[in-house]
């Protein structure tokens, strides 16, 4: 699918009033609205499930996801009577095994880790960079604003997947590229290009907010700029930031899967103790493609998982956006 360089739909506007004693109430309102959106709640639950799956992987799996079980390759999952290669399932490997004899179920479960973290970590980094850049830009204006926005313009013009590819290809064999099995490079690549969108949004919100009375009031009381930013601007802009993050997560997950499919993602891990992240769904897809005829369930389950988590997070993100700014939806619920 076309991964848009901007999120579909308008950016939510900041809430109408200053955050004071009503701040708890506002978030409760958002939560209430969110709760009523069944799709969004469904998405949230699925996401939480995946997080548990990823974190609790050692508890959920009995087999070693990196071990090549000789002679037991391409076994079908237990609900299939016989695979195209006329092999019978083995109850020890409930989802069957791949071409190298590795247990598919434990690989799927451990793969959730990478997808979830790839969703979270770069998004968080981008959020931080974008927030700081956007708020400084909007608040201080002037030359800083100019320079930052020009940089953002340039970054936004880059087709991001292209940049990920170029960056990964170039640095893959270096020491940097080998750190954390290639995940450090991956996170770096994802973060470096994508902070522009959130920066721009935050800047817009900051611009709107800084001319408000409460800012003047705070300043007249002698508050420093940093204090104003963090105490007043940030809470108001938080709504946008959170929504943006929720909508950016799927993009990150897809980018990782795409890179893994091209062979540019994580490096393969030889044994369990080598790394926290043993494999990723994108990697499983890329490995499973050639065994489509003999063991299609590897490909199908991994594709399904990616689709599920991405759809779930998207529903949640949409719901969050609608909850934060109900005007968005037109005749809001």
């Amino acid at each position: 699918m076309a991964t848009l360089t901007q999120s579909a739909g308008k950016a939510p506007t900041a809430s109408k009033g200053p955050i004071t004693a009503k701040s708890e109430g506002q978030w409760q309102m958002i939560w209430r609205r969110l709760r009523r959106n069944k799709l969004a709640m469904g998405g949230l639950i699925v996401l939480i499930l995946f997080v548990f799956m990823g974190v609790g992987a050692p508890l959920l799996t009995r087999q070693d996801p990196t071990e090549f079980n000789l002679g037991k390759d391409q076994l079908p999952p237990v609900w299939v009577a016989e695979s195209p290669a006329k092999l019978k399932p083995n109850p020890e490997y409930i989802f069957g095994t791949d071409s190298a004899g590795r247990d598919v179920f434990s690989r799927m479960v451990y793969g959730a880790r990478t997808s979830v973290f790839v969703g979270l970590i770069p998004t968080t980094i981008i959020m931080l960079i974008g927030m700081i850049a956007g708020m400084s830009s909007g608040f201080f204006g002037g030359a800083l604003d100019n320079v930052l926005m020009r940089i953002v313009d340039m970054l936004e013009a880059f087709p991001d997947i292209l940049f990920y590819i170029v960056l990964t290809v170039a640095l893959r064999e270096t020491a940097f590229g080998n750190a954390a099995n290639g995940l450090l490079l991956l996170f770096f690549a994802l973060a470096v290009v994508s902070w522009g969108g959130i920066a721009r949004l935050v800047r817009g919100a900051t611009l709107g907010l800084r001319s408000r009375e409460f800012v003047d009031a705070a300043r007249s009381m002698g508050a420093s700029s940093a204090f104003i930013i963090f105490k007043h601007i940030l809470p108001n802009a938080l709504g946008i930031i959170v929504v943006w993050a929720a909508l950016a997560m799927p993009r990150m997950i897809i980018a990782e899967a795409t890179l893994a499919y091209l062979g540019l993602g994580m490096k393969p891990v030889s044994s369990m103790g080598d790394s926290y992240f043993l494999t990723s769904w994108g990697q499983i897809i890329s490995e499973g493609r050639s065994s489509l005829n003999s063991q299609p369930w590897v490909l199908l389950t991994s594709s399904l998982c990616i689709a599920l988590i991405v759809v779930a997070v998207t529903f949640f993100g949409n719901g969050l956006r609608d909850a934060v700014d109900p005007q968005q939806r037109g005749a809001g619920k």
Partner: protein
Amino acid sequence: MIGHKTKVLGLGLLATSLVLAACGTAAPSTPVIVEKEKIVEKVVTSAPQVVKETVVVAAPTAVPAAKAKVLRVNLGTYPDNLDPQKASFVNEIAHLKLAYEGLTKFDKDLQTVPGAAEKWAYNADGTELTFTMRKGQKYSDGSLLNAKRFEYSIIRNVNPATGGEYAFVTNDYIAGANAWGEAAAAVADAKDDAAKKTATEAAAKAEATLRASVQAQDAAGKPCADYKQEDCLTLKIKLGAPTPFFHTIMALWVAYPAKEENITAGKEQWTNSTKFQVGNGPYTWKVLEPQVKSRFEANANYYGDKAKTAIEFAYITDSAVSFNAYKNNEFDIIALAAEDLKTVQADAALNAQARIYAGSCTTQLAMNNKYPPYDDKQFRTAVAQAVDRKAWVDNILQGLGAPTQTWIPPGYPGYDKAEARFAFNVDEAKKALAASKAPTADKVPGGKLKYFASNSPRNKTRGEFLVQMLSKNLGIPVEMTLVDPTEYTARQKKGDMDGMFLQGWCADFPHQTNWLPTYFNSKSFASRWGYSNPANDKLMADADVTVDPVKAAAMYDQAQKTIIGDVSSMMFWNNVNSYLVKPWVKGLIQTPQDSGFAGDTVPTAIDIDVAMLPK
């Protein structure tokens, strides 16, 4: 509600765009008519261009079973470089082998037989090779093929400006070839104009020397005038040192006679056009659609056995898709991917169509002779007898391999079938171990043996299997060390891995020299694990310059036996070629040198039984 008109317009647009998209592709239509000719072909043998217009089947519908004979092959990746003097990969060579032919070629036993040249002769000491071309040979477009064509293509391969990866195969032997390369590099390195001037002059001289080494001559011994000269049938090649196997090298694609005027006319794109890829091989290159398909048809101007079928290549890289297309009868030959092996074996019909046969590579388990206890021959013998090759092939390679105890693979000249001195035998291994310097772990430096592998999940599993087997059978603990891939190559070249590791080699051309001295000379690859046998080096060097092929073969044989006997490493397994071939493909001759598809060393032997084709 949405304008009905808009909908219709829209659908129309969609349909139009799809059709336009398809239409825009200029589909080179293959005249079906030409296929019909094949059926009558056997009657009309050497008369070229006769049957082209005659369509015997006047009413095609009357003879429904007269299907065209086309061998449809999925080649996989589309090649990068279809220039004979720049090609280096299997897929590239697969195309060139059909459209062109060298001075010599290989038969089904990989012996070098006459190709475009009907005979050749070395001078007394093997430093000059003279080819005599067949008279009246033609390219597929009917133009003359004389010795000057080969002079051009050989010099083009040597020319440093061409930059082909297989330039070494001619340059290491032809007199003045490497000197020209050096001189050209000196020009490239020249920093200022004065240095450049001297370097350029030197390079010009070097080029002239090389040109004198490769000369097309007429019957009187005078240099040929041009490509049109009919009596230009002699090609003299001066070799830097006695090279009695150079005629084998002239069968390789590096000397394929691409036409100079085509290369000039087509410029950079000449390789992508059938207008310019005009060759002298058994096939005419009729269609070349990069990344989509190629089609070769029998070359009516070819002097030898006419091809019985047309050949079509497709370039589906996805092996799963390729397999499905095969099952769907859209291909006749495809490469069998390891992932699909079990599925094929489970199906009786498919299993019968699987062709798995020895390939062109051998892998050995090297033991670094420089480090104890590997410096002790008895110890090495013990190791060599402690590995169950068959178990490895069955479990690790899933049957896609063949155990071997000798170096040169089966099917290649010099293959030693009888070699069996280091068969798997745990008792013998234990005996040898007891007689060695390190019969128990405490006598081994560090208390354990080391096995090195490049870090990847696959290598790790293989290593674990091997390490376990050795530990058990030797009674000495063996430990695996996974090395980062880039570091591994560097360490391999340095030769400082103090233990065992896998090393492999694949044939460049079917001759013992490519297997023995190239690899096992003390100064070449053998230095990586510290093997050195100067006497054997001399034997191999002598074999290299022995003009009498029978004598040379005997010398190589002895050298190989010595190498195995020295057991500096354990010969482990040969790779296999694995293909699926439809049952209606007949006459296919398998050789280990097959590269593009099964039987492509002698493609003209392939036939299709039209009666068996699905309706």
